[in-house]
């Protein structure tokens, strides 16, 4: 089932199902409950129809027999009420605003921003609505983009603006807004061969300064670390609607592997909407574990946390294929990690003149 947008009425109805579950349990003289899928790597599986990883069948029941769970239920009710108010008033708020608004919820107030984010996700999962349906916006801003591609964005005044992400933008590129759905953005045309997603701002700027996008006919996308939903969503749209390959260029460490998995296979936290966010055709370009050796890159020792993360990845279904197992084991064996920018060891142009062309050639893109 493809995730779709819901009307205000549908959203309300879906939310009332959750509220009804709690209410009915109390009427029956039982502790109120809320049923959720388990949100860990142990409960994600590959959906061959959608080509991404989705939550499996494991459910957890959050019931009000402990203080912590009971508070979660109460918070969920407050959030539902708050969303209903916004739907009625035609307003929206950021997750952070909701966190602050919860100050007035007394017993139902959030302990941390993380709690409110998680609860918003819980609601998405249970109702099958999107947080856009809830009128909740993320705080994080989306990515930056540069390249010869043209899109249309509806501005605050409701007018459509045509933007070419090479000619109509400055050095910082086109800023991807938090909402990249059809009502906000239309992809018009492009003259590029592929899209390259880049982890760090330093590397993004290096490629722009070296004119890499024009020379290699590509669109550059700055991920800003773990990419926001809108970043992943626009990547997916460009890849699908324009039929463009996506290559991902990250640091060479366990956390980059996770970033890639969330782009290509779906993130564990958002596995309920993987088919909406993930780009299954994306390819990992580097830095790979064998790049560290092959290019003799300056490196750092893996920290205890790095090693733990790598070991966890070995049992993560998303990394089950041979290539990944190989890479992870190799990194563990080396005991080393390397940053994208360590390529500068060979000069500022090495990355654009040698490294990337060699790596892209392997993929048949250069």
């Amino acid at each position, binding site marked *: 089932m493809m995730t779709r947008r819901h009307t205000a009425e549908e959203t309300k109805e879906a939310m009332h199902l959750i509220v009804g579950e709690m209410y009915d349990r109390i009427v029956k003289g039982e502790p109120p409950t809320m049923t959720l899928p388990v949100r860990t790597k142990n409960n994600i599986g590959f959906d061959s129809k959608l080509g991404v990883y989705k939550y499996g069948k494991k459910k957890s029941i959050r019931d*009000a027999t402990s203080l912590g769970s009971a508070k979660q239920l109460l918070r969920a009710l407050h959030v539902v009420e708050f969303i209903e108010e916004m739907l009625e008033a035609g307003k929206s708020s950021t997750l952070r605003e909701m966190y602050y608004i919860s100050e007035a919820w007394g017993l139902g107030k959030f302990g941390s921003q993380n709690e409110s984010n998680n609860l918003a996700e819980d609601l998405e999962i249970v109702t099958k609505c999107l947080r856009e349906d809830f009128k909740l916006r993320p705080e994080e801003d989306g990515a930056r983009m540069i390249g010869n591609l043209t899109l249309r964005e509806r501005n605050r005044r409701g007018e459509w603006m045509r933007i070419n992400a090479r000619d109509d933008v400055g050095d910082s590129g086109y800023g991807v807004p938090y909402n990249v759905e059809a009502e906000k953005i239309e992809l018009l045309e492009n003259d590029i061969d592929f899209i390259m997603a880049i982890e760090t701002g330093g590397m993004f700027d290096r490629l722009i300064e070296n004119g890499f996008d024009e020379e290699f006919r590509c669109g550059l996308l700055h991920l800003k670390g773990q990419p926001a939903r809108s970043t992943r969503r626009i990547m997916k749209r460009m890849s699908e609607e324009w039929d463009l390959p996506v290559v991902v260029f990250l640091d060479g460490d366990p956390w980059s592997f996770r970033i890639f998995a969330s782009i290509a296979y779906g993130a564990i936290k958002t596995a309920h909407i993987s088919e909406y966010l993930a780009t299954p055709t994306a390819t990992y370009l580097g830095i790979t574990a064998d790049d560290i050796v092959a290019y003799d890159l300056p490196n750092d020792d893996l920290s205890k946390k790095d090693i733990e993360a790598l070991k966890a990845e070995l049992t993560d279904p998303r990394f089950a294929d041979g290539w990944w197992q190989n890479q992870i084991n190799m990194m563990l064996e080396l005991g080393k990690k390397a940053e994208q920018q360590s390529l500068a060891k060979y000069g500022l142009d090495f990355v654009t003149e040698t490294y990337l062309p060699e790596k892209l050639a392997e993929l048949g893109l250069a």
Partner: protein
Amino acid sequence: MSGIAEKLASNQKQVAISEFFEKNKHFLGFDSLARSLITAVKEAVDNALDACEEARILPTINVAIEKLDTKKDIIKLVVEDNGPGIPQKSIEKVFGQLLFGSRFHAIRQSRGQQGIGITGVVMYCQLTTGRHTHVRSKIASEPTAAVVDIGLDTRKNKATKQNQGREIWYNPDGTAKEHGTEVTAQMKAKYQKGRQSVWQYLRMTSIVNPHAEITFTDPEGEVHHWPRVTERLPTKVEGIKPHPHGIELGQLQRMITESTDSRMTVFLRMNFSGVSARASKELLVAAGIEEKAKPKSLNADQIRALLEAFQGERDVNGKPVKLLNPPTNCLSPIEELLIKKGLSKTIDSRFITTLTRVPAVTQGNPYQVEVGLIFGGNMPADKPVEILRFANRVPLMYQQGGCLLTKAIESVDWRQYGLDQPGAKGVPKGPAAILVHLASTNVQFTSEAKEALADNGEVIEEARKAMLEMGRGLRKHLEKKKKMAKTKEKFELINDILPAIAKKSADILGKPVPDLAGSITKIMSAVISETETVWNKETKQTDVSITLFNYTSRTRAYTILATWPEKNGAVMEGNETGGRKEATGVWAWKLESMQPGERTVIKYSLSGLERGDWTETDVFFRGAQDVIGASKMDEKFLEEIRRQERALTEPNESDAEEDQHAQPVAEPTVAPPSGQTTLFGGDA
């Protein structure tokens, strides 16, 4: 006992005392500028406390330190007390003569057992600043106070006096002072803060002297005040005669040469404790000395033989001579309740347990170990616990690592009692302070600096046992705290959160608010008790309430039991639920039928206590189903209390010795009350 005193006496003729002082200042306590100041305060305060104790006066002591010259480290120290005062003609003896006083002869627990006391301070001041020490003292029977500047003639070992006179001594409020002594000294010294400071010394002194009121004005003008928390003076200690097991050759020689007794049997019985008529004869047989022999006539070999008989190295009929233990009424423990008060006035905490062990004897010397543990509050959780060591009520502030008392603490695996202790080694970490007090007629130090107690297997074991018992108290407290937190959460859940869920979900759905009774029973499915023990300022009583909720679907019956400080003279009032006395300090209420959803409250007030005396009530239950917030009654615990009751009411059945002089140690007829920590620490 030998040590400095004799060294001083014998060296006196050949070496100028000042030179001796200079050479030995490390063990006289004047080896560093910081320590010199602490020593000076200590000598003055010890004198004040001793004088007050002897005169049965509740001590009020003021200590003030002023920096006169920061560059040259010149400090002025003033110590004032409300003791009996010193008659004018004795002042020079007290302050200016070495070895004055009777301490060196009597065997009893006293603060200063050795050393040169306040005279050392006078000497130190003179040597470092050239200044004399100003003394003002008034006795009640005279209208005016005597004042004098005391110095020391180090050649003649005598005091020198200057500016002698009399004056009226006014208190700061203008009234005339009735009695007391004030010492003003100027010395080269450094004022420091922290673990080894005057402040810490006074704080520790105040903990073990809860009957003293101590005020300290530091060089910055800040006033630190440790109030008196009890009106009870320490019991007056009796001097006892030496016990044969604890005597040294030199001392025996001196006693024998000084003796005027007619025969050895009399000498042994009159001059030693623990020697019965039979034992005196047997000792002489063992030593090969005639009963009729005149003590003075003994030669060196005979004296040595007698000492060997004392020490069990010479037998009679193949057995060493059996001696009675020395009496232990010469000890003055601080006692559990007072340690508790002393600790709680100086350290803010959540939990205190204290324990005084029964007196014991090692090598002919009676001793007694007392411990206290204070936990929680503002103390840092990641640092080693604070160790408060005391010998005969005197704080030990240096050489912590080498001290027997520290070793006893380190010998315990504190991890099982809720403190951190990596590898079960060393001083545990956690928000706690541990107090150890050794009271003894003969405290053995590792060195003449008198800052660390020397190893003694028996004493360590005694202290260790006390620690283990306190540890158990702490563990129970922590477990209880955890349980209480859980109960509190459950109550928040059903009283606040659940009704909010019901109301909010009903509002959203536009339906009526549902009844919660069923959900509550399912969530709790238990009987829950909540106990409150609070001090009531208005009535000056401790109010206790035990609330029981039956959150099960069936009728329940229980007997609820609670501890209360009956032994400490508390009176239970306003107990409308009735019940009966189960044992000393344990009251019981029978609750025949508690209906589902019913709430039962047991309420009473305790009078005859002071604030802080009773802060935690233990609640137990007898019944089939668990009661959250109470413990199942441990019938063994009750049995133990009843056993103690019987032991106290029945006459003491220790063997009546035919000998009048020997006072056998009253061996405890019951094991040291394991319930005592419980009843005092407020835990079971």
